Every structure is written in structure tokens, then in C-alpha cells.
């Protein structure tokens, strides 16, 4: 590494980083500040940086205005339930693509990967029709179904499996493992970091998903947080309940933000590996 003096270049770099960080961070800070203000305060002194008092009233009111409790449960079930199913499908697919030979493998893999770019987001309409025919509208399963096979996860795991030495497989065979045992006992323990990266990506994506659940869910029984919040915000004829809205927004975003704050390194790794290699 080069010795660092306080060169002009370095000063510019610091300036860029500090200014950008402040700008990007500001909306979050502002949201926190507004969420504590009363309506009266918000409209009479809209630009004061700190609220005059810290009160949780907005949070309590927002919680009561919409069934956020059910929304939380739905989001958690959808996100983690999906991750669980994906872990199974992705492992099997990745293993097949990485370690088995069958005709048409490459073509199949290409087709599979198309899903990386053409996400369920862009095929909402046909997907909606399918879910509707299956009678799965307004169920959590309906929200999850288009995502149960993940191309990104398959790709990540396939890469990880391929990087493992063939000796591993041979050792497994000698011990008399069948394929399932081999995957579980021999291969999976070796690819934990790829699994974790995928898990983080999957959870982040599905926690934040909006349009698809907006369409297929119809009430608090299956509706996740993001959709619940948007509906809460769009109550057409009411006033502009900004402070309530900011409190609700924070309630929705907090779990992931906290997770990111604590596991920053893992998140960063996950996003890098899924973005570039996949």
C-alpha cells in the first residue's frame, strides 16, 4: 500500500465522502425527527431539526390506525417461509447444475438464469392470472409462489459447489452416501457463506417487495408491511398525516436497518456476490 500523505487527491476524496454521506443520510434523520413531532408543530415550524419533545404518540396512533401487527406477521411468514423453501429448491437445483451431467444442461441453465433479469416484477400480469386460476389470491402462499425457485440463489450455490474439489464427492461415495446425504453432510457445510449471502439477499428483497403483494393480497390476513403502509398513506380524502406516516415508515424499515447496522459486513458481502457474479 502506498503511504498516505494529506494530498490534494485525498482531501477531495474526503470531501466527496463526507458530503455525499450527509446528503444520503439526511432523509433518514429527517424521518426520525418528523416522526416525533406533533401535527401542530410540524406545520408551524416545519424546518426545525429537533422535535420539541420526544413522544411516542405518533407511533402509538399509527399502530392503532392500521393492523400493523398482522402486517408484521405476514411479512415475517412470507419472507422466512420463502427463504426456507428456496433453500431446499436452490440447493437441489444448484447441485444438479454443478455436479451432475444430463442432456440439455447448459441450455436449461441459461433458461433458468433468464429469471435473474426478468423478475416476477415484470411478469406480474400473467403471474396474477395464474395465481388467480389456482385460487390462491389473498393467501400468503400466493405471494410466495412466483419466487419459490430463485435463479440468483441457484447461481450463487452452483458457483460455490463447483469450486469444491471432486475428492469431496469421492470421499462421500466411499462412505456410502446417497445423493441426499451427500448434499446435506458433505456439500452444504462447505458452502455456508454462499448460503448466508443468498439468505440476506432473499430476505431483503422479499421484506421490501411491494407491487406483487399489492396485487395479490386483499386484506390484513395476508398483506405485508410495505403494502399496508402504502395503503395507510393513500387514504384519499384525509389530510396529510406526515408525522404519523413517518412513524409508520420507520416501524416498517427498522428491522432491516438494525440488521444491517449489526451485520454490515455480511450484508455487504451478500450484495456484492449476488450483484456481480449473478
Amino acid at each position: 500500500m502506498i503511504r498516505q500523505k494529506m494530498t490534494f487527491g485525498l482531501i477531495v476524496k474526503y470531501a466527496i465522502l463526507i458530503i455525499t454521506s450527509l446528503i444520503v443520510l439526511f432523509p433518514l434523520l429527517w424521518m426520525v425527527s418528523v416522526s416525533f413531532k406533533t401535527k401542530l408543530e410540524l406545520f408551524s415550524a416545519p424546518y426545525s431539526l429537533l422535535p420539541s419533545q420526544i413522544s411516542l404518540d405518533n407511533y402509538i396512533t399509527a399502530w392503532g390506525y392500521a393492523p400493523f401487527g398482522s402486517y408484521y406477521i405476514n411479512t415475517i411468514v412470507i419472507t422466512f417461509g420463502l427463504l426456507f423453501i428456496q433453500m431446499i429448491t436452490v440447493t437441489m437445483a444448484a447441485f444438479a447444475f454443478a455436479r451432475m451431467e444430463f442432456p440439455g444442461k447448459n441450455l436449461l441453465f441459461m433458461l433458468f438464469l433468464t429469471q435473474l433479469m426478468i423478475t416476477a416484477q415484470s411478469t406480474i400480469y400473467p403471474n396474477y392470472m395464474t395465481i388467480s386460476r389456482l385460487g390462491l389470491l389473498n393467501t400468503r402462499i400466493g405471494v410466495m409462489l412466483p419466487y419459490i425457485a430463485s435463479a440468483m440463489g441457484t447461481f450463487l450455490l452452483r458457483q460455490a459447489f463447483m469450486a469444491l474439489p471432486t475428492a469431496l464427492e469421492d470421499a462421500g461415495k466411499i462412505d456410502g452416501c446417497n445423493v441426499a446425504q451427500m448434499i446435506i453432510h458433505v456439500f452444504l457445510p462447505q458452502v455456508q457463506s454462499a448460503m448466508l449471502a443468498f439468505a440476506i439477499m432473499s430476505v431483503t428483497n422479499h421484506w421490501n417487495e411491494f407491487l406483487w403483494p399489492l396485487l395479490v393480497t386483499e386484506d390484513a390476513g395476508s398483506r405485508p408491511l410495505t403494502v399496508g403502509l402504502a395503503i395507510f398513506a393513500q387514504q384519499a380524502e384525509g389530510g396529510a398525516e406526515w408525522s404519523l406516516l413517518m412513524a409508520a415508515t420507520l416501524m416498517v424499515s427498522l428491522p432491516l436497518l438494525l440488521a444491517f447496522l449489526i451485520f454490515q459486513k455480511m450484508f455487504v458481502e451478500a450484495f456484492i456476490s449476488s450483484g456481480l457474479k449473478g
Partner: protein
Amino acid sequence: MFTRISGQSSFAGLENYISMFRSREFIEVLKNNLIYAVFSTIPAVIFGLILAIALNTRIRGRSFYRFAVFYPTILPIATASMIWVFLLSQSIGLVNHILDLLGITSGIDWVNTSPYAMISIIIVYIWKYSGYYMLLFLSGLQSIDKSLYEEAYLEGASTLSRIRRITLPLLSPTTFFVVLLAIVNSFQAVDQIYVMTKGGPHNSTNVLLYYIYEYGFVYWDTGKASSASTILFLILLITTFFYYFGLQKSVNYER
């Protein structure tokens, strides 16, 4: 192909396409989407690159900067858009207040007037994704051999010329992927439009996916929604094709 799924028999779909391409609205939607793709992708990628270069130094507080710039990526965009609607409010929004204090302009009606509505959703895109692209560039940068820089440094090359001569050329595969990813992201934008503008004012922020949503789920016009879905599908398919083409090549190159 989608018309069949949606329940229409035979090839009645063709009429849908013709009438769609004849409608002013749809052409406008395509144009908007193109504008959005170009003007959100370019700045977000450039910002990402600049930030990555700045961060790829031994610098104090790295993880703070990384958190500050990257956190919007993990926020739901529907939620993030709500913060921005408030920040961009003409009368009580902070953005106008600051612009006013700095004496730049005053009283822009961001989400309600054209072209500012489009600029607003572009700002949100840049805010949301720059940090992500930064991260991708950063990992690209870290794979560049440090000794190249040492050499250039000893030769007395300035920071800028090192960036131009070493960083940019060696980073070009990463740039290629990031740009494609950014384009794909821009065609899948809909959450911020649903929350911020509903495609308005006068259709100026209506993009393809929002159009599909509106025809499919507000007007219940099966034909139009299916045809527009196919168009979007084709656009993404073409982009994806380039992506894999590049992927295949770069993998060969590395190994």
C-alpha cells in the same frame, strides 16, 4: 404468448398491439421509460463509481461512509418514496427550503409539475441505488493489482491520471454489468411511481410497468395489460441477452 394465459383464445392479441402502438398514451409511456432509464442509470452509475474510487483508499471512517451511502439499498423503495414525497413537498419540504437558503431557486413544485416529477423519481432512484453500485465497483476495484498503482505512483502520475490510465480500463467489465443491472432496474421501477406520482402529472411519469398495473388492475383491460407485458418482457430479454453474452466472455477471460 401471454394473451393465451390471460384467457383470450387464438391470436386476437395482434389487434391489441396495433391499437396500443397507435395510442398517444402508450408512445408517451415508452418515451418516459426511456428518459427514465437513461437519466437514472447514468448518474447513479457515475456516482457509484466516484464513491467507490474515493472509498477505495485507506481512509478514516470507512464503514461509516459505507453505511451512510449504502443503507437506502435495503430500505423498501415504497417506503423510501414516502420520505421523498415529504422532502420534496413544495411548501413544507426540506429540499425547497435548502435550495432557497442557498439562493439557488425557490418554490419548485417537485412531484406535481413536469419535468420536475420525472426528476423527482430519478432523484429517488439515484439515492436508492448509487450506494449499491458503489459496492459493486468497490469489489471490482479491490481485484485490481495494487502494484500497478505503485508503479504509476513512482512514475509521478497524478491521482486523476492513475484513475484514467489504470482504474477505468481495468474496471470496464464491472462497469458493463453495473450499467446493464441499472438499466434492468430502471425498467422495473414502479413502486416509487405508485407512491409518488401515480404516473402524473399528465402522464409524464407513467412508465411501462406502471402502465401494465393501471390497465391490468385498475381498468381491468386484459388485452392491453397482456400486450404491454409482452413488450416489457421482450425489452428485458434483450437486455438479459447482452448480460449473459458479457458474462460468458468475462468468465472465459478470467479463467
